[in-house]
């Protein structure tokens, strides 16, 4: 008897899942299909549904977890299979160099003028021929003014002795060694070994102030009072600020660094037409604002800045009068990368002693 009930239940489940499939098909999809390949949770579902509603193009959302996986799959597909990809700047540089990216037809994307020029013309696509930015991570310092005695205005303030054992940082060593490089007035992307080593020596002086180094959920430590200040990723800044609006976000005096996520169309995309339509659709200021509030990354659409809810403005848009230096972290030579990794290990070891 029990078995029969179990079988019936299983059958019911199967039927229900078919029914669920059925309802999905009712949207009109005469515009064909478009394969969108990116990380999980990059768009609110309403935006994707509205796009299908408007254009009749059905979106097949496919996920990857790391940029490297994406590149490997795209190489295997020889630039086909996918219609629109969103990935990080440095991997796009490699994909373009390998001929896997198609030039965009800007006539089909009239709204490209909405993009904030700060994020354009960067190393991975100097002439903006292949990509349109979709969100940026900006490296900022966040601190709790109620437990920190100094005013933090830039990276150099993190070296202040009053911050002993009170700072948390992430483990991206290009960004962290980069703080020292910036304090020294150097470029993030210097390939001069002596300069990188000097930055390493500077980092050793910072070691006593470091309480923890971690990538995941560092905002929790700031919120619980474990640390008073942190250098962290934008998505974490968003979570920290939503939980405690009294925290302060600092755009360092020395200039800011950022990473951009870019949308591009692969060289042999089956539905390049649809991909262009999608880019144009996303560049609409209202749609963009909806996306960035959901995504929690910096708004790359200048026209959308004003539409972002005030609650999020201080950490999803750059200040209106922002005029500081900006520099992106790009790929560097193997020797320079090794020097970075080495001084970083020295620094980490020093923080433990």
């Amino acid at each position, binding site marked *: 008897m029990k078995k029969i009930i179990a079988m019936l239940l299983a059958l019911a489940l199967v039927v229900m899942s078919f029914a669920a499939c059925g309802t999905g098909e009712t949207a009109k999809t005469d515009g064909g299909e478009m394969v969108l390949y990116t990380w999980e949770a990059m768009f609110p579902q309403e935006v994707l549904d509205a796009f299908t509603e408007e254009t009749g193009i059905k979106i097949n959302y496919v996920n990857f977890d790391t940029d490297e996986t994406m590149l490997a799959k795209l190489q295997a597909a020889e630039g086909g299979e996918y219609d629109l990809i969103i990935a990080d700047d440095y991997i796009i540089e490699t994909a373009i160099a390998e001929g896997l990216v198609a030039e965009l037809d800007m006539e089909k994307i009239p709204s490209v003028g909405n993009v904030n020029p700060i994020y354009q013309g960067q190393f991975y696509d100097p002439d903006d021929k292949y990509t349109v930015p979709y969100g940026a991570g900006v490296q900022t310092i966040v601190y709790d003014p109620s437990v920190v005695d100094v005013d933090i205005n830039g990276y150099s303030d993190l070296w202040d002795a009053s911050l002993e054992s009170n700072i948390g940082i992430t483990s991206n060593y290009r960004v962290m060694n980069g703080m020292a490089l910036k304090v020294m007035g150097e470029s993030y992307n210097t390939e001069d070994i002596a300069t990188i080593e000097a930055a390493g020596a500077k980092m050793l002086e910072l070691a006593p102030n470091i309480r923890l180094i971690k990538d995941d959920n560092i905002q929790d430590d700031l919120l619980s009072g474990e640390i008073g200040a942190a250098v962290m990723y934008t998505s974490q800044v968003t979570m920290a600020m939503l939980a405690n609006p009294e925290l302060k976000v600092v755009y360092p005096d020395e200039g800011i660094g950022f990473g951009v996520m870019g949308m591009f169309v692969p060289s042999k995309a089956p539905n390049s037409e649809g991909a262009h339509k999608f880019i144009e659709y996303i560049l609409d200021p209202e749609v963009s604002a909806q996306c960035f509030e959901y995504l929690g990354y910096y708004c790359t659409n200048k026209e959308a800045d004003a539409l972002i809810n005030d609650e999020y403005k201080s950490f999803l848009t750059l200040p209106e009068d922002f005029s500081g230096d900006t520099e992106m972290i790009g790929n560097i030579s*193997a020797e320079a*990368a090794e020097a970075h990794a080495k001084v*970083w290990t020295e620094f980490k070891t020093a923080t433990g002693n």
Partner: protein
Amino acid sequence: MLLPLFIFTIVFVLGPLVYMVVLSFLQRAETWGVTNEFTFKNYLNILEPVYLSTFVESFKLAIISTVLIILIGYPFGYFMAKLTAKWKKRTMMLLMIPFWTSSLIRLYGWIIIFRANGVLDKILMALGITEEPLKVLYTYPAVVVGMIYALLPFMIFAVYSSAEKMDWSLVEAARDLGASRMRAFLTVTLKMTLPGLLSGIILTFVPSMGLFFIADILGGNKVVLVGSLIQDQLMKAHNWPFAAALAVVLTVITSVMIALYRKISGVKELEGIV
């Protein structure tokens, strides 16, 4: 009958090992991946003081943890063997239950205990022992507690399984022949449980060389062990050959320790894991 086992071993054990050794003699490519040029550079690189220090640090943590685990685990296993059958089963159960939860989740439990104004601070402050949060989390002692917590059961089971099998009448005989309690323990009990103790040491010392995620989570990434260095080189620096060379050296060191154990104890199998 044995063929599938051989194939399995070759594909999943020998294969990756050979791949790792080969990788350790190659050069890293400019952005990511490797080039097929033969080099000893990766091994010479390990001799840099900063990288050698991670081996020293790993040994130091492994020794501290193992000594503390012996001090707690040996008496535990010894007295557990003296319990009645019913209580043996119950104790065993109590030791096993935490293993049903992911070790990562159990570590997060320690964060809740150690964090500022966490469980430990609340208790100590309520008792009036401390006045301010201790900030134990992200310190060396927190890492040591995590290591002990993760590895203690291996020591207990190893000691227990030797003490269980022991013929207690030998201890009685020693006592009858005039040996003091201490002497009987040292000459009879300790000797008979030595294989268990030694395998307990191997079962805690060897993994503690590699359990870097405990140092990362409870130590705030500040204690750099060989394991975390390998992870950094592989995932962050994309220097696969150097990571492979570090892994080969670590594998050799642990193999030597196991060989030494066999030589000293004269035992072929590790006690307490079957």
